[in-house]
């Protein structure tokens, strides 16, 4: 069968360019991310760095590991999605050929093996091109992680020889995983279908499609329902992931939904009518073209919208929980004995390693602790819960620890021993501080180097300018509103960088998927185009009708993608309402417009190009009998 697979691929290579590219990109990304992940996970800050600096570097490396992990999972998911939709689509287009094989004596197993053989060849090709591409990508990714500040300049990725075997395995596994469903469907093609002119009789909404659609819709609904009860970080993670499920559900139901959406579009003239009829008739094809647009829109619009909303909710929350006039930023605590200052809360940030549990279950994390004066802190941050017990050897915990626990703490390399947790800080959508330490616990020498912000409240009737001038000598002074804005902007920047990497990747895959499905769709329509021309349409009219059709499908894909993103937004509203008490939604309309523009440009160009080349031969050569 492998010979048949090879011949089939060679014959229909344009149909498989997209899948080959996807496997290749998938292999390259998985290989590069895996090597970088291992290197980052085992990375040790160079000796000789100050302890505080060293912990910061290691904290950055941890974020890089998480980010690489997401990249790895994301690229595998999208690669399988694009490959499976490619093969699902080619099986639908090749029903006649597959039925013919059955007619001359191929068993169901042989047809399945034919497709698996194609997948293995494709996987091998993907690995062969993906391994060298992965090397180039690793250099690029390293530079990106360095410039974005996740990894220090001293970081280098190490090559492991076994990665070649792993990459070949990845290529084949990605391709085979993508083809499994299509192979099953191919095995069910009946021999008699070879004698019908088109495979149009094939049911579009198969049982499998219904089941997977309902499964993903159910998953999305479950995540929306559970998310407000999962705490700030759990809820945010769930809300972000709703988009994956709802996008797949919308893609599965696309054959039902697209004609409904297309009916809403204006259809003027004979070309409009033709495009609309084609859309209704070729529901399978329309759904395949729309699927990547749906996924692209749902992921980018949904996740950017969720991230933006959570950031906005975090800013609003922090504004409500901060009662101060000025913020002074300095290195180490400063003296605020300045005329006009009513109260001041100095808060120094230090990296620490926190061990919870004991014996077998002990778990150590790198966290950020805030060294504070409990009384002043409570004044500057109203609604922060009771910190009355926070004196002597005691700490207040946030995410992951709760009052009554005992933890072991090393702050910036200094072991503070075991400490009781006496209070819990309220959960914040912006993450907040994980641990609060009373100032007496930490040696003054450590604090001297720690970045410190001091929230200053001025006495009524004080001269703000004079107080400000006095404080300027001790650090950088900001109005509290300016500081809040700057703080959220800094957080946004980090988020934006992470999204740049992860979503950029998703968008790239989705675009490959879009181009791919338009190419496949047009390749199978040469005869149809020829028939239209024989009826009297000019070549440019055929191309225009195809363009109209692709624009309609793209619109439907964007609408369905926005509907899928709306599921994420429902979850965002529920989570922000549960955590901060105010439902918040801040949607990235500009980005949505950008997605729409890119989708239209890409599908239109591809459609014109493919229908132009499909109509190049004279119609009569395609209308004759035969294949």
């Amino acid at each position, binding site marked *: 069968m492998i010979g*048949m697979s090879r*011949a*089939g691929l*060679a*014959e*229909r290579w344009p149909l498989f360019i997209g899948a080959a590219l996807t496997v290749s990109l998938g292999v390259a990304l998985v290989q590069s991310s895996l090597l970088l992940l291992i290197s980052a996970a085992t990375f040790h800050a160079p000796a000789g760095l100050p302890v505080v600096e060293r912990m910061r570097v290691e904290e950055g490396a941890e974020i890089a590991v998480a980010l690489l992990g997401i990249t790895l999972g994301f690229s595998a998911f999208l690669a399988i999605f694009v490959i499976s939709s490619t093969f699902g689509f080619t099986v639908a287009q090749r029903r006649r*050929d597959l039925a*013919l*094989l*059955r*007619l*001359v*004596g*191929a*068993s*169901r197993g*042989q047809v399945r093996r034919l497709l698996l053989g194609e997948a293995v060849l494709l996987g091998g090709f993907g690995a062969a091109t993906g391994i060298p591409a992965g090397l180039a990508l690793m250099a690029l990714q390293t530079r990106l992680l360095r410039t974005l500040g996740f990894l220090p300049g001293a970081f280098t990725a190490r090559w492991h020889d076994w990665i070649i075997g792993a990459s070949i395995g990845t290529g084949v596994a990605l391709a085979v995983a993508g083809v499994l469903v299509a192979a099953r469907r191919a095995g069910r093609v009946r*021999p*008699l279908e*070879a*004698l019908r002119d088109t495979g149009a009789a094939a049911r579009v909404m198969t049982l499998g499609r219904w089941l997977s659609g309902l499964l993903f819709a159910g998953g999305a609904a479950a995540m929306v329902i559970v998310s407000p009860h999962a705490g700030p970080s759990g809820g945010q993670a769930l809300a972000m992931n709703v988009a994956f499920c709802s996008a797949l559900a919308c893609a599965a139901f696309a054959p039902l939904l697209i004609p409904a959406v297309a009916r809403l579009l204006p259809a003027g003239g004979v070309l409009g009518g033709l495009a609309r009829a084609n859309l209704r008739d070729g529901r399978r094809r329309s759904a395949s073209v729309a699927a990547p647009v749906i996924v692209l829109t749902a992921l980018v619009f949904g996740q950017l919208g969720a991230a933006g909303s959570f950031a906005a909710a975090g800013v609003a929350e922090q504004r409500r929980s901060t009662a101060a006039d000025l913020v002074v930023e300095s290195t180490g605590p400063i003296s605020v004995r300045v005329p006009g200052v009513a109260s001041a809360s100095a808060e120094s940030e230090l990296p620490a390693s926190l061990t919870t549990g004991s014996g077998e279950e002990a778990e150590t994390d790198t966290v950020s602790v805030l060294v504070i004066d409990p009384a002043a802190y409570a004044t500057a941050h109203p609604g922060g819960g009771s910190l009355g017990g926070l004196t002597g050897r005691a700490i207040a915990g946030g995410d992951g620890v709760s009052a009554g626990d005992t933890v072991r703490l090393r702050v910036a390399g200094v072991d503070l021993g075991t400490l009781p947790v006496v209070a819990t800080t309220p959960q914040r959508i912006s993450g907040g501080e994980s641990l609060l330490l009373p100032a007496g616990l930490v040696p003054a020498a450590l604090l001297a180097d720690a970045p410190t912000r001091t929230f200053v409240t001025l006495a009524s009737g004080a001269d703000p300018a004079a107080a400000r001038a006095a404080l300027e000598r001790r650090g950088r002074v900001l109005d509290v509103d300016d500081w809040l804005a700057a703080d959220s902007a800094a957080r946004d920047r980090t988020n934006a960088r992470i999204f740049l990497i992860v979503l950029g990747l998703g968008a790239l895959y989705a675009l490959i998927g879009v181009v791919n499905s338009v190419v496949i769709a047009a390749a199978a329509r040469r005869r149809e185009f020829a028939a239209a021309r024989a009826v009297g349409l000019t070549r440019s009219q055929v191309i225009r009708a195809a363009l109209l059709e692709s624009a309609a499908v793209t619109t439907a894909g964007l609408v369905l993608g926005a509907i899928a993103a709306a599921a994420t937004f429902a979850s965002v509203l529920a989570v922000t309402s549960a955590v901060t008490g105010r439902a918040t939604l801040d949607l990235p309309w500009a980005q949505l417009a950008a997605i729409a523009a890119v989708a239209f440009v890409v599908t239109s160009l591809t459609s014109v190009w493919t229908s132009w080349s499909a109509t190049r031969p004279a119609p009569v050569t395609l209308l*004759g*009998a*035969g*294949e």
Partner: protein
Amino acid sequence: MTTLTSQRTAAVSLRGVSRVYGRGSAAVRAVDNVDLDFPRGGWTAVMGPSGSGKSTLLHCAAGLERVDAGRVLLGDTDITGTGDRELTELRRTRVGFVFQSFNLIGSLTAEQNVALPLRLAGRRPPKAEVRAVLAAVGLADRARHRPRELSGGQQQRVAIARAMVTRPEVLFADEPTGALDSTAARIVLDLMRAMADGAQSIVMVTHDPAAAARADAVVFLRDGRVVDRLTGARPGEVADRLVALER
């Protein structure tokens, strides 16, 4: 109509076979309670107006379509309720198909197309065997061409070679000359005539009286039923009979 002898010698027998499409008032009886024997070693043509059920009859007889009532026998084997595995085996060894639209696999050369049924059955046929079958249809010099490099008549001859390479008991042909010009059609019919003279059983559906006249016997179908039969007729007689049916 059915004698014991004819049953023993029949290549394919249909016993009370019906095939209904649709349900309720929209139901169409494409094949309606047909009893028919296709003799072993003979060439039978099935004719009838459009929609008379001749293609459905062929599909039922070849085990491509399930029947709603009655039995289908291939030689001594009852294939009426056979599972997919057995039908696959049957297609590999005992029956061959030729269709109007050639149905060659575009990515394979002529000889690869011909060798395909044997390869699917797990055999590696010697090149000489495949070449010999191609030579028998007059295409020894076209072995390495792909279907799109061949004329319609040549493609159909490759399809016949592919059907014959397994030495099937019965060759089923659905409008084998329907897409060919008259010269190419004559070559294909000559080939089939020679095969029938060599004791190959052939069942052919056609609407072309000239093609039907080459067969040993012609069966006429209307509204899913066998309405007439001719043996050794000339094209003119076949055409007259067909016109009478369409009236």
